[in-house]
């Protein structure tokens, strides 16, 4: 599936909920299904700055696609990064770089979109895209 399609899918899923509690509970569920990063990659280098909780992300090129794994010590943060990874993992770096992130707003997580948020959602997106940029050059 393309990033766009996955995002639509996520939007669809979230549209079923009519209050924040259900949304957060689902997000926590998603967190539990996060493709976990290997312990060896849980290094300080892989920590994303700007989050109050710790978030580690690792990226690996498999053929021409970028595969992300991650973890966090906070479960809501884990849910957020899980959503991002679902949308961006297993995609071509180029597509990741060009991808929109409007869907965050549409699934009711707009409040997390300010760059000053302590949860660092903006930092996470930035980091995933940075990985994509880095690996993009590697492909060429």
């Amino acid at each position, binding site marked *: 599936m393309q990033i766009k399609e996955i995002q639509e899918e996520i939007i669809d899923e979230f549209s079923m909920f009519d209050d*924040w509690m259900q949304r957060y*509970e689902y997000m*926590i569920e998603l967190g539990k299904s996060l493709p976990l990063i290997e312990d060896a990659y849980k290094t300080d280098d892989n920590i994303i700055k700007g989050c109050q*909780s710790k978030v580690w992300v690792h990226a690996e090129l498999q053929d021409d696609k970028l595969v992300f794994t991650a973890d966090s010590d*906070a*479960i809501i*943060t884990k849910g957020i990064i899980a959503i991002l990874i679902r949308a961006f993992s297993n995609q071509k770096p180029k597509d990741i770089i060009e991808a929109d992130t409007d869907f965050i707003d549409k699934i009711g997580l707009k409040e997390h979109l300010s760059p000053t948020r*302590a*949860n660092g959602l903006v930092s996470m997106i930035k980091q995933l895209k940075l990985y994509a940029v880095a690996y993009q050059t590697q492909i060429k």
Partner: protein
Amino acid sequence: MSWLSGIFVYQYIDMLDINKIREDFPILKRKVNDRPLVYLDNAATSQTPKQVIEAIVDYYENYNANIHRGVHTLSQEATDKYEQARIKIQKHFNAAKPYEIIFTSGTTHSINLVANGFAALLEDGDEIIVSAMEHHSNIVPWQMLCERTGTILKVIPMNMEGDLMMEEYEKMLSNKTKVVFCNHVSNALGTINPIDEIIKKAHGVGAAVLIDGAQAASHIVADMQALDVDFYTCSAHKICGPTGVGMLYGKEEWLNKLPPYQGGGEMIAEVTFEKTTYADLPHKFEAGTPNICGGIAFGAALDYMHQIGFKNIAEYEADLLAYATSELLKIEGLKIYGTAQRKTSVISFNIEGVHPYDIGTILDKLGIAVRTGHHCAQPIMDFYKIPGTVRASFSFYNTMAEVDTLVEGVQRARNMLL
């Protein structure tokens, strides 16, 4: 002098009428995420009563002007009001002289002023002592001092309850000890430290003492002369005052010993390119245009607090603390950090298996504002080997019903997160 009269109207009310008090705080009417705001982040910053907001508006609408040296009426009025605020602060803290009160931009600025000054007075091999439960603002400036001077930093350890180990402190003291600095109340734990004893012991070896009163000031009236403390400091924004202003109390003899911190207007007597001489206290430490409105509003905040009455505040907050503590402890897996006998109305806690950030996020969704994280006191977190805590801190305008909302909220968060 006549212009001083009428500053202090201590009007002790025997029982606090919380509903009436809440009317003074416009922000408490706010909704957050469609729920009434329950503001329990008072240790980070307190809310501002309309009396203080009005003092600010009055300043800008009626007598905003640069102070000192101005001949015109507005400048005179602003100067008078600013100096009256200094005297309010002096009386509140029972300092011997008005010029022992230095206006600063806050506690952090105050501590840097003192630590920087000691750079000129300390020598390689001298020792300074800090407590294990300090805010970064009372650690980093001294570390910077140590780097500059080769001074050695020693740390008074604490026990699991969050009390300082005073026997260890005594063992550390020697004639090499030059400064001891410690907070009056810990922001992360709420512990009220035995500063009386800390000061006396330090003076026994001739060391100066700085007490960081940032967390104490809204709960406890500290008496500078009775404590015989050398430096004491706090921030207005934690005592119902505005942001961007604080005070440093310094004993006259110490303030005379310390070199000036910042150079600029106001703090000089005479300037030529060859040589500059410094002005008298307090101006020596007040370079540049100060936060004039802030200083005046700081005074208004103290007036307001005295009108409520610090004794009433302390009693009521003790009730809030006792009730919140016993209710929170009913929640399975909840652990409180900081269980000292003498505490202010601050509760730092965690729930086993849950990250504090998650609890804070769910509470926010419920309209409840608490702080999560290391509270700028990483060494305490390292001590307990935790990434942080959830901190609920109560003020005299909080209600028992809000405590209930908090407890329900934490319970709900626990259910969602575990």
